[in-house]
C-alpha cells in the first residue's frame, strides 16, 4: 500500500518565462519536474512515486496562460489554462463545448481552480479526463525544447503507460484545436463511484460531424479514458457509423466495437468486466447525446 505522506524534500525555483523554464529543465532534466497546478505531481510525491530534487514552479510564467481564437477558426490555449478557465471561457463553451463539459466533471472547484490542461496531458495518466475529448477534437500540442519547437498530434502523444513522446528537455506550451463544423458537436461522459470529486473509472468522448443532410454521419471520433494503458482512440468504433443514421442497433454495434478495441485492466477499484460494461454504456450514451445535440442545434439553428 502506498500512503499519502508528507512531501519529500526538494528545491523550488519559480520561473518567469518559457525560456527560463527551458534552461532550468535542460540543466538537470532527470532530477527536475515542472510544477503547474500540482494536483497530480504533489500526490505522486507524497506517495513517493517520484521524488524530484528540483521543482520548477510555472505559476509565474504568464505567457502560458491564454485562450486565443485563430484566424482559421481554430483555437489555441496555453498549457497553464486551468480547468476552471476551460469550464467558464465563453469561447470554449461556444466552440468546444465538450471541453467545458469535461472540465465541469472533474474534481471540485478547488481542484479546477489550480489544475491545468498542460499538467493533465503531461501527467500521462490513463485516468486523466482531457486527453480523450481533445483527441476526438483532433488536438495537437506544441513542444518547446532546446532544439526548437514541434507539433505533435495528441493521438500520438502517449506511446505507452505513463509516458509521453516529449523529450526530457521539452515543455508542453500550448494546445491547438482545429476549427469545427457547424454540424458537429461532442460529448464526454465519465463514471466514478461517488457523484462528484472522485477518480475516473472509465470515460468516453464522442465527437460527431454530420453530413449536410443533417441526418447521416460524416465523421465520428471516439476516445476513451481509463480503458487502456494510454488514452485510447477507438477508430473502428468511430468508423462504423460513418455514412449511417443514428439507430439503436448501430449504436449497439459501435459500442461493441469500442469494447473490442479497449484494453481495460482489473484493479481493486474496478474489474475489467465492469469497465467494459461502462465502456459499452458510456460510448452509447456519449455518441447519442453528441449526435442528438448536433441535430437539435442544426435543425433549431441555435449554433
Amino acid at each position, binding site marked *: *500500500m502506498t*500512503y*499519502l*505522506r*508528507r512531501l519529500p524534500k526538494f528545491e523550488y525555483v519559480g520561473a518567469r518565462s518559457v525560456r527560463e523554464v527551458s534552461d532550468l529543465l535542460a540543466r538537470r532534466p532527470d532530477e527536475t519536474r515542472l510544477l503547474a497546478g500540482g494536483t497530480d505531481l504533489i*500526490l505522486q510525491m507524497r506517495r513517493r512515486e517520484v521524488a524530484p530534487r528540483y521543482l520548477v514552479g510555472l505559476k509565474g510564467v504568464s505567457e502560458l496562460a491564454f485562450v486565443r481564437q485563430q484566424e482559421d477558426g481554430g483555437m489555441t490555449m496555453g498549457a497553464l489554462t486551468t480547468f476552471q478557465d476551460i469550464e467558464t471561457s465563453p469561447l470554449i463553451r461556444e466552440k468546444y463545448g465538450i471541453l467545458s463539459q469535461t472540465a465541469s466533471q472533474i474534481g471540485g472547484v478547488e481542484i479546477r481552480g489550480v489544475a491545468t490542461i498542460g499538467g493533465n496531458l503531461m501527467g500521462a495518466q490513463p485516468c486523466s479526463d482531457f486527453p480523450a475529448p481533445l483527441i476526438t477534437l483532433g488536438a495537437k500540442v506544441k513542444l518547446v525544447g532546446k532544439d526548437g519547437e514541434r507539433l505533435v498530434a495528441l493521438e500520438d502523444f502517449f506511446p505507452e503507460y505513463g509516458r509521453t513522446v516529449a523529450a526530457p528537455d521539452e515543455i508542453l506550451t500550448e494546445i491547438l484545436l482545429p476549427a469545427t463544423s457547424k454540424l458537429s458537436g461532442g460529448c464526454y461522459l465519465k*463514471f466514478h*463511484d*461517488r*457523484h*462528484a*470529486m*472522485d*477518480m475516473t*473509472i472509465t470515460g468516453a468522448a464522442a465527437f460527431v460531424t454530420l453530413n449536410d443532410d443533417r441526418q447521416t454521419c460524416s465523421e465520428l471520433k471516439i476516445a476513451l479514458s481509463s480503458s487502456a494503458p494510454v488514452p485510447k482512440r477507438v477508430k473502428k468504433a468511430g468508423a462504423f457509423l460513418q455514412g449511417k443514421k443514428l439507430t439503436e442497433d448501430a449504436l449497439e454495434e459501435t459500442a461493441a466495437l469500442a469494447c473490442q478495441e479497449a484494453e481495460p485492466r482489473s484493479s*481493486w*477499484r*474496478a*474489474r475489467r*468486466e*465492469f469497465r467494459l*460494461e*461502462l465502456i*459499452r*454504456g*458510456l460510448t*452509447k*450514451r456519449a455518441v447519442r447525446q453528441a449526435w442528438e445535440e448536433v441535430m437539435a442545434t442544426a435543425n433549431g439553428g441555435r449554433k
Partner: protein
Amino acid sequence: MGAKEIGARVKRREDAALLVGRGSYVGDLRLAGMLDAAFVRSPHAHALVRSIRAEAARRLPGVHAVLTLADLPASMQVPIPMASVIPAAVEKLYASEAEVTQYCLARDEVCYVGQTVAVVVADDRYVAEDAAELVEVEYDVLDSASDPQGALGNGAVLSHVRLPSNLACRLRLAKGDVDAAFQRAAHVFRESLHTHRGSASPMEGRGVAAALDTATGTLTVWSSAQTPHNNQRVLAELMGGSLEMVRVIVPDVGGGFGPKAICYAEEAVVAACAAVLARPVRWLEDRREHFIATTQERDQYWEVEIALDRDARILGVRGRMLHDNGAYLPLGLITPHTGAATMHGPYEIANFHLDVSVVLTNKVPVSVVRGAGRPEGVFAMERLMDRAARSLGMDPADLRRRNLIRPEQMPYSIGLVYRHGETVTYDSGDYPASQAKALELAGYDAFASRQADALRAGRYIGIGVANFVEGTGLGPFEGATVRVLPSGKVHVIAGCCPQGQGHKTALAQVCADQLGVRLDDITVVTGDTGAIPMGVGTIASRSGANAGSAVLLAGAEVRKRILRLACKNLEAREDDLELSEGRVHLKGDPAASVSFSELYRAALGGARLGGWLSPEIPPGLEATTYFTPRQSAFCNGTHVTEVEVDIGTGRIRIERYVVVHDCGRVINPLIVEGQVQGGVAHGVGNALLEFMGYDDDAQPLTATFLDYLLPNAACVPRVEIGHLESPSPINPLGVKGAGEGGTIGAPAAIIAAIENALKPFDIAISEFPLTPRRLIELLSRSAKWGALAP
C-alpha cells in the same frame, strides 16, 4: 416553572466561533518549549520485532529523544487496559486480558499495519518524521490473518503468536425455545449477510499534548477525546501515579464519532515523553495515521433465519454472527454485543437465539463508530423482514406493522441481556406511530404506481423501509455543577465532552429554564477533569439523558436556594415569586425584584466581613449533582428512502429520505435535526461508498481519501424529518438520545430501496457498502439484465 428554552429551536452558540476559525483545538495549543512527536509504526500486518536501532535517529540535530517500550516508565511497559468490562457470561478463549490488548509501544510482536513501535520527539514534526525514518527496525515477518471467515478454520494462520486460536470470545443472546418455534413455523427464510468496516473520519484526527508541572508533579494532558475521565484514569495508571496527578482537558474537538472514546497508545506515550523530557510534547494524527491506527468498525458476517406463522407473525429468529475485531479488543465486546442485542428491534419476537463469535485478525482494532454495532444488527433484522415480505408477496411495510410492539405494551422487556449484563427493557415509544408517520411523509402508498410508471419509461426507482430501536443514555452516571457567579451570570460545568454535539447550547437551555436566565448569561464548561472530578464522557448517545438530567437537578437545587434567599429579601412566599432575566420578581409587582447578583452576596453572608449565615444553608448559589440512570433509555425511529438506479452504470441516486425519530423529549429540534441529517450522511457512506479494504496479507488498500470515499454534498439527500416525542421515564428530563439514529437505520433502508428498484431482475442484496461495481456484478448474474441496460 415552564419550559421556555427546552424544545426551542435555538441556534447553536458554538458555531459562530467555529465557523470563522476561532475554535481552539489541540493543534492550536501554543505551550512554551513544546516539542513534536512522531511515531515509528509497523509496516507489516504481523511480525516479530527483532531489534530497534535508533542511534542514527538520535544523532539527527533537533531530536530530543527516541523511545522504545524499554525506555518508558516501568508502569507503562504493560498493555493498555481494556476500556470496558466483558460480562461474566461471555466465554473467553484467551488466558488473560494482556493477550488481547496492546502495548503502548511494541514489545516483541506487532499485529497490524500502523501499530506503534517507537516514538521520536524533536523540535518540530518535520525533524521528528525525518528521524522516524532513520529508526531501523528489524522484523521477522509472519503470515497474517486477514479474512475473518478464514481465520477460524483448522490450520488457520494465527493473528497472534501467543493465542491458541483467532477466536477470542463467544457470546450468546437467547430467549424462549427457538428450535421449537422454527419447527412449527409456516415459513422460514434465511439470509447470509456481510457488513464491511469503515473509518470514522472526523475532520480533526486524534491529537494530544502533555505538559508536566515540575513543581507539583502534576501532568496536564490536552486531548482530542470523548472520555476525558476515562483517559485520566488510564493515564494515571500507566504513569504509575494517582488519579489527581493527571488532569485531562478536552478543548474543541472536530468530530469524534466513537473511536476517540478510548485511550490510545499515543496518548500514554506522549504523556510519558512530557514527563521524561520535562518539556511539553505534542502529537497530532495525520490522515494516514487515522486510517491505520484509529479504530474502525462494522466487519461482520451474519447467518440468520426467521420463522413466521401463517399470519406472517414472527415466531422466532436464530442464527450466528461472526465479528472481526481486528488485532485487539481495546473496548471489549461493546460493538458485537450491542449489535446483537439491537437486532431484535421494535418487533415482538418470542424466541431468539444468536451466537456471536468474536475473531481477531491482523487489522486495525475495532471499537465503535457511530451506531456501535447497531447498523449491522438492524441491517440483519430488516433484511430478514424484506426477504420474508418478498417471498410471501407481502408489502414489506405491512409485514413490519403486523409485528411491531404496541405502545400499550410499554415498558417492554425483550428478555435479552445487554452489553453490561443488564436485561433490555424498552422504556417508552410508539413504534406503529413511527412507521405510519414515516410512510405518510414519504408518500409510501402512492409509490407503487409511480414505480410502475417509471419502469414503463425504463427507469428503476425503489423504496425501502427500516425500523430501529436504539439503547441510549448509557450509565453509570454523569454530573454537573450549576454556579451563580458574583455578576449574576451562571456557569454550568458538566462531565460530558462534546465533539460537535452542541452541548454548550443544549445544556444552557436546560439550565435557563430552571433559573430564568438568558442563554447568553450561561457559560457551559465541559471536558475538563479539573473542573468536575467525576465523569464518564460523551459516547453512546448519552449526554442529553445524563448530563442534561444532571444539569436539570443541579439547576433545580440552585433555584431552591435562590428562592429561599429571595423569600427573605422580598418578604414573600415562594409561590409568589418567579425567576426571569437573572432576577427574582414578585408576581404582579414590577417594582419588587432582586437580582441574582444581590442574592449571591446575601448567600455569602453579605459583602463584607462579619456577616452570618444559617448553618443549615450552605454558602453560595451553587450545586453539584450526579444523575444515575437505572437503565438505558430506548429511542426508536423509521427510515424510508427512495432511490433511482442506473442499471447501465450501477450509479445509485437517493431521491428522497425520510426519518421519523423519537428521541424522547427534544431539548433543541435544530440540534436533533442536525444529528439526524449528519447521521444519515454517515449511513449513506456506509451503505454506498465507504470501503476500508485490506488485501490477503492484511495490508490496507484504501488509506487515503482518494481511495476511501466519503459521501459528499452530491451524494447526501436533504433529510425530511418528523419528530415523535415519547418522554423517557428513566430520567427527569424525559430525553433519550439522538446522536446515532440517523446512521443506524440508513444502510438497511438504502439497500432495501435498491433491491426494490431492481425487482425486475430478481436479485438479492446482502451486503454493504454496495458500490456501482458490485451492483453491476450482481446485475450481470440476472438473465434479464443484459438486454435492458441502456
